[in-house]
């Protein structure tokens, strides 16, 4: 009997293309698995990232006292190129993109037609006609809708770039020790490419912790090499990977807002009143009415001229040491005027910090006599604490080392 040349049934089955369902590993996953003692993972835009590695508190203190690695590979990254790229970007975001020079990064929000915020992120400018937009949530559909009538090419580069947020006072010294020459010239919000492991490493002096730090961008194939080089160079400078929980503490200290926490994507909400304008989130400085049209401009101008903003976003310092998670805010302990969106007991500042959304005129014309109702669980007995709160400027934590160029070698 001759050997059959047709494949057997089991072979046919195994030849079926596999559909990758479930969470994807990031390029740093092998190292993360090694280090992640808590085995506490969370979902970010389709990827698994650690919530913590060993101890949230220790990871937090590494941010403020050493150097930390936080995997931001899941960050959505979109390349916008073409002759109309600048015009496109200027129509996309309320701030003036013309003022962002090549080699610079800028924080930006963007709105829908009603002037309600869709997401925030960073714009990297590489050249006159070349940008990258990074955001926490997926934005491809909105970018493509916005591209109608513009000669631009929009590419989703999310999976093509591995990235680490490298934050903490000793980060500069570690990069120097790694042999990244010239990194000392980077000013806050600068970005620059450096040779590394036979490829290009893009370093931007940006981050989400309010501390000295960088974000490192590299091709996925070199991700583990980058991780290993950082860990080796940082061995003497208390380097540690951190998870999302520790980062969240630092970002509240830095006073940064976060989508899905402090505001919701205006096109994802079911109740149309849940959209928030930049004026309602303390982002007035993002809106440049003088630069020409952008999506949401007419609605925002109407809101500004009609003084019709409904909310006011404030930073609070609260008495006591119980973090005011999900708490309601009162005026004169009686009238409910808003709620806390993010709260943390700040280990560095030894202060009870929060960010809150208040109904105007509270927070604008009326700033005194504010109270926060905090519920405290004492072994399944709930206590209610009315704590006095004071409006303070953000960022709460703003050390000079964050801005110093060249940075100090801690």
């Amino acid at each position, binding site marked *: 009997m001759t050997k059959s040349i047709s494949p057997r049934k089991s072979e046919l089955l195994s030849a079926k293309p596999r559909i990758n369902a479930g969470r994807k590993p990031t390029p740093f996953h092998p190292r993360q698995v090694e280090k992640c003692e808590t085995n506490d993972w969370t979902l970010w835009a389709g990827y698994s990232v650690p919530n913590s590695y060993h101890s949230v508190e220790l990871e937090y203190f590494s941010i403020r006292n050493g150097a930390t690695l936080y995997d931001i590979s899941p960050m959505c990254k979109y390349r916008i190129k073409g002759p109309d790229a600048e015009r496109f970007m200027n129509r996309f975001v309320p701030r003036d993109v013309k003022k962002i020079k090549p080699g610079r990064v800028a924080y930006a929000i963007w709105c829908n037609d009603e002037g309600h915020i869709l997401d925030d992120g960073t714009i990297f400018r590489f050249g006159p006609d070349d940008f990258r937009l990074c955001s926490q949530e997926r934005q491809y559909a909105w970018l493509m809708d916005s591209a109608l*009538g513009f000669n631009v090419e929009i590419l989703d580069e999310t999976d093509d770039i591995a990235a680490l947020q490298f934050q903490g006072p000793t980060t500069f010294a570690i990069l120097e020790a790694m042999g990244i020459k010239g990194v000392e010239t980077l000013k806050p919000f600068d970005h620059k490419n450096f040779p590394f492991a036979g490829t290009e490493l893009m370093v931007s002096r940006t981050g989400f912790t309010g501390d000295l730090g960088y974000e490192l961008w590299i091709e996925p194939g070199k991700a583990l090499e980058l991780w290993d080089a950082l860990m080796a160079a940082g061995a003497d400078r208390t380097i540690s990977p951190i998870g999302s929980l520790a980062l969240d503490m630092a970002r509240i200290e830095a006073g940064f807002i976060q989508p899905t926490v402090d505001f919701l994507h205006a096109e994802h909400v079911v109740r149309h009143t849940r959209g928030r304008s930049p004026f309602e989130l303390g982002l007035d400085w993002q809106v440049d009415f003088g630069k020409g*049209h952008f*999506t949401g401009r007419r609605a925002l101008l109407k809101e500004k001229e009609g003084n019709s903003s409904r909310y006011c976003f404030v930073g609070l310092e609260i008495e006591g040491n119980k973090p005011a998670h999900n708490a309601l805010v009162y005026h004169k302990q009686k009238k409910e005027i808003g709620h806390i969106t993010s709260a943390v007991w700040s280990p560095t500042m030894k202060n009870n910090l929060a960010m809150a959304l208040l109904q105007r005129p509270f927070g604008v014309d009326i700033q005194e006599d504010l109270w926060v109702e905090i519920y405290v669980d004492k072994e399944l007995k709930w206590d209610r604490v009315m704590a006095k709160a004071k409006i303070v400027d953000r960022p709460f934590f703003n050390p000079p080392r964050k801005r110093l160029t060249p940075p100090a070698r801690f």
Partner: protein
Amino acid sequence: MTTRYDTIVIGAGHNGLTCAAYLAKAGKKVLVLEAKDRIGGMAITEPTEDGVLIPTCAHLLYQLHPDVIRDLNLNLKMAASSLPTIALGSDGRHLKILGETLTAMNGADLSSKDQENYTQVMRDLKKFARVLGALLGQKPPRLKNRDWEDTKTLLKLGLSIRMMGRKSMQEFLRIALLNIADQLEDHLENDLLMGVTAMEAVWGTHLAPRSPGSVLSLMYRLAGSMEGTQGAIGIPAGGMGKVSEALEQAATRAGATIRTNAPVKSLLVENDTVIGVELESGEKLLANSVASSADPQRTFLSLLGAEHLDAGFTRRLNKIRNRGDAAKVNLVLDGLPEFNGLSQQDLAAKLVIAPSINYIEKAFNHAKYGEFSEHPALEITLPTVVDPASSRSNKHVLSIVAQYAPYQLKAGWSEEQRADLGEAVIRTLEAYAPNIRKQIVSQQVLTPSDLEQLFNVTGGHWHHLEIQVDQLLMMRPLHGTAQYETPIGGLFLCGAGAHPGGNVTGAPGMNAAQRILSRKG
């Protein structure tokens, strides 16, 4: 750049001209800019070498708003103002329809029950159409702007629906969004009668009789009137071009300036307000307002530019349904055509080949999948018979609307596809007029793609965009542009893309002018 106009009107189609005439009559300084070398848009009559006048695109008049005729004192004579419709049967047994009266020709089947029910169905539809008709000559009311005039319009609309009586109101609300096939099959049994009536509902649309909303499009069609007769159809003496010429005269008489061969390249914007236009020639013209009768996509995306609009708005704009599905075929014949079972006298009519609802549905099936119909439904007029003055020889014209021929043909429109479409039309005709092929002296086949090119209408749709419930009234052309205004100051819409829509009505132009005049400051 010394002159500053009160209003620059883009496009010298009938709506642009109507708008200009109203504005000029109110003492405004008005300039009309037309890209082509002649005025009239889709309502034109063109002479051929054979000595006949051809209605290149539009060939029937049935909705020119009576206010437009009266206010602008239009000098318009009709060659016929009440043409009968003849539904052609392939066996030579036809049905003639005039108003609600049916006549069976050559012994065609027609039960007395159908006679009676047809009259009732059409009376109801016309009654309901009158409710809509009241809205044609004014700005569509918005629901949320707390404007007293709008509230009044809405109250009147509600009241007029209620005043029809409880039974009629219920019936109106029941059938308003129904498909015409269901409605007809509930009451009639004659295929030929149902075919021709259903086709009335879907001319010029991307709908077939079983498409939802086709009752509403029929009501819309019946909302107009000719010389006081609701739903009547006619042909102007000298052809459809005479409507445009009369409007041109009215506009010029009132002091408006009309420039042809003056294509607009872009709108000039300053401080988020449109302040004029730049022509292809580079010439810049300033105005306090610009009224565009170009279709909405052309107006917003090509002339204004997406950078002046919000992304959500341009997303919606990109999705409006504006793809034409009707072709125009004009045949010049060496003499009078001979249709089975029709006398020479009968040719002064609108002839319809749509012998059953299923015939139309089958024709539409092709269009759903990006092909033109193998056996299209045809609307035929003989302008040279109705108006003998439009032929200087013994030659005659068959002016034909053929459905369906989708704008986006899967194979792409080419010389060959166009010829095949012409062949499908002639083949269809041959079943009713066997000798027609030999009589053809010359032919013109215009696909929606050709109409787009010829008349600068994106999608080649004769209503600019579908007349459907989601693109009507305050939602026409789309959310964000109600009442002839646009998201940007100084720019208005005055074409078929605005309420109440297409056909030669003049209503969008008239309403837009009134809107511009009522503006404060």
